[in-house]
């Protein structure tokens, strides 16, 4: 059975569809002028205690699967070695004799700086509508695009710096175009990643250098500020919240602290973010990750999973290959298989997590074919089996140990779902404590009709059809009349 995807109305669409990309300040104007807000919920205050009263929005709990996008100047270079993180190239290059330091010298020469490569970041084939359609095909319910990564190059026109994609490189508002495309289609919720700290920035106490001569060099687009946090970082946070109204804020880079290690003072923009989301005619739920060094809605597990069920909502973020940004040296065999990724999704969801799977577009804006293939494979599986994923919740235990094939459990309204990782044959046996009554029907998603089953020796034994919908994971769903 195909899953009915949850199309949603955005604030802009609800207001008549006229404003898809709101100008700065729109959200506040809505809040102050016309919004009815949420009755009984006081405004969030810029304190951790107040922010901790913010609930994880229902849509995020239900969504389960999102797409992470790392895109920037580093995509031009495409990594130094097959297994290097291309988005960290600038940092690694700053240390003598690293692979990046040598690669840069040998490829571009000692006098060509990282910023000299910005003009090659052209995004000439960037088609945000096609991106959103691909996310949709993948079965993703949300995405997070790097509005600014650790190299400080913003993909939107920031007012506090000219180091952005409208002034340099593509000369386009890459963030705005994707947010608009997402809102037009109304199928995938738009989110933004933002790096609090930066590798190099004069205001952070680490000016840009030529890493071969050690000479300090100008940082492209830099506008001098006194206080990195107050005059620059916080203002950028307000910019992306007020201009793009994202459903998700995904912070990172909090470890690149300015000299003197002042706190990030993130509580104020976080409270503003929550308040502008609720104080409008059609309030919406928004969500924040755990890298602001203060309150959070969900915990992040980078390149790993939570091995146990966790009542605290969490998210596994993972690359398809090794690198987050595009790495042209990465061989196909270093990409995770569709089998692994689909089974990973089932595992994560069974333990109360979401999966945020990363792609790294090329500098021209195209998405590597192998990444598209992986996303479409996941989407094809979700089209058949999504009923056991979207809107589900963990059962009393997430998995079955000691079974030949891995088994993961989820619960959805009126259903108990047995997700078998792999291709069972003959009889599938599961412990007799699963919720099932004598009149329960068991179906295999992707097929019609009910399956024969018996209870014997404390086990539920299900007769498995000879032909299965998937070689990767199959969902046996039990009617659960509670």
């Amino acid at each position: 059975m195909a899953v009915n995807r949850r199309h949603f109305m955005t604030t802009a669409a609800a207001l008549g569809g006229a404003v898809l990309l709101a100008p700065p300040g729109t959200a506040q104007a809505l809040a102050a002028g016309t919004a009815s807000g949420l009755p009984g919920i006081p405004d969030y205050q810029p304190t951790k205690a107040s922010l901790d009263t913010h609930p994880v929005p229902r849509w995020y709990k239900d969504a389960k699967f999102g797409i992470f996008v790392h895109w920037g100047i580093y995509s031009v270079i495409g990594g130094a070695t097959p297994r290097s993180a291309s988005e960290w190239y600038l940092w690694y290059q700053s240390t003598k004799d690293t692979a990046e330091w040598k690669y840069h010298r040998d490829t571009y020469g000692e006098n060509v700086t990282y910023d000299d490569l910005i003009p090659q970041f052209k995004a000439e084939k960037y088609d945000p509508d096609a991106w959103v359609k691909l996310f949709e095909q993948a079965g993703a319910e949300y995405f997070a695009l790097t509005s600014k990564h650790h190299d400080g190059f913003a993909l939107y026109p920031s007012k506090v710096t000219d180091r952005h994609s409208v002034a340099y490189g593509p000369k386009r508002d890459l963030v705005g175009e994707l947010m608009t495309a997402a809102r037009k289609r109304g199928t995938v919720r738009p989110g933004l990643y933002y790096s609090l700290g930066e590798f190099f920035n004069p205001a952070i106490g680490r000016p840009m250098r030529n890493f071969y001569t050690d000479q300090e060099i100008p940082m492209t687009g830099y506008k001098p500020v006194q206080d990195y946090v107050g005059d620059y970082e916080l203002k950028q946070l307000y910019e992306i919240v007020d201009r793009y109204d994202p459903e998700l804020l995904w912070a990172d880079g909090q470890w690149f602290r300015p000299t003197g290690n002042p706190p990030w003072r993130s509580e104020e923009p976080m409270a503003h973010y929550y308040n502008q989301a609720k104080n409008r005619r059609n309030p919406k739920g928004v969500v924040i990750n755990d890298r602001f060094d203060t309150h959070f809605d969900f915990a992040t597990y980078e390149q790993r999973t939570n091995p146990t069920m966790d009542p605290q909502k969490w998210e596994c973020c993972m690359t398809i290959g090794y690198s987050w940004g595009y790495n042209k040296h990465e061989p196909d065999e270093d990409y995770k298989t569709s089998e692994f990724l689909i089974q990973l999704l089932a595992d994560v969801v069974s333990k109360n997590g979401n999966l945020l799977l990363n792609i790294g577009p090329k500098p021209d804006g195209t998405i590597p074919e192998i990444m598209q293939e992986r996303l479409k494979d996941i989407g094809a599986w979700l089209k058949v089996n999504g009923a056991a994923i979207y809107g589900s919740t963990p059962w009393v235990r997430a998995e079955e140990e000691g079974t030949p094939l891995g088994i993961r459990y989820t619960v959805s309204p009126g259903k108990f779902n047995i997700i078998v990782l792999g291709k069972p044959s003959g009889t599938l046996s599961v412990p007799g404590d699963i919720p099932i009554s004598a009149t329960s029907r068991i179906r295999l998603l992707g097929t019609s009709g009910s399956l024969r089953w018996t209870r014997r020796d404390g086990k539920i034994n299900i007769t498995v059809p000879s032909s299965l919908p998937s070689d990767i994971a199959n969902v046996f769903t039990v009617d659960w009349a509670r």
Partner: protein
Amino acid sequence: MGISNGTQFDALGPTLTVTTQPAEPASGDKVTATAVLTNDCPFPLLNAVLHLINPRATTAAKTIPLGDLRPGTKTTRRWETAIPADMAGDVSFTAHVVFDVNDHSSDCARSAKTFTVPYEPNGVRDPYRTFATTDDAKFGQYGSQLVIWAGGRDFSGGTDEKGGILLPGSAAESSVVQVETVSLTGSDNPTAKYGIAVANDLTAPEKGGYAVLTMSKSYGVEFMTDSDGNGHLDTWAGGGVSTHPALLRLVRSGTTYTAYTSTNNGLSWNEIASATVPSASGALDAGVVASAVNLNYPGTTVQAVFDHFTVEES
């Protein structure tokens, strides 16, 4: 649609709590656990089912259908059990409630009362045997868990001091030895380690077939083998950062050993290295080992806890 627009179903709750009487029970105590579920959501919990779970159990001791719970409803349920004498470590009484939010979404809440029962060196039972190359080793067995207390100056090719628990002659020509390394405590030494060991005779490594696969306190996994059969570990692979708990797996195919680790409960395995140990012969001893590696931390010992130790033919 309901779920897509607005924040109607965004809520912190419901609130689920678990308490026990006595509050800090010991091994063998009879315990009354109480779960209190309060629906402080602004919407009803539909078709709610409450599961009450005993320590270390994966099956609910009680499953209680609660029907629909209106906002403000408070439900209390109790269950009783005795803490088995062979249970130690973190012991949790858990309540888990599953409910529907609407036709599209289910949700759950989970809460546990956890307390710690200290491990004591209670020895091991058949078919396990113990061995040690350090004077201060002690051993325990709690259900599926094995515990080693050990000092030892080093655990490498030069100095090989450790405590161990073994299954004699258990690893056939084609076999898989696997264990969950649960915790390593008692020392801040980042190089203290615990893991799997195999040998023709683990009490006499000089008889050949010797290899170990360990997780260190902080410096990742180490796979060491004795390539020339003299009883000294002389090859090394591994590194990185440590994860506790983790799964270690050593696959034997004749004289070829391949080491793996998993940090996601076995969903995927990372191969550490493969090595040939020509002196491996017949069915090997397989076991778990631990060492404080206390040369630079004089007098310290570690408590190493393992679970789910298995040796299977492949």
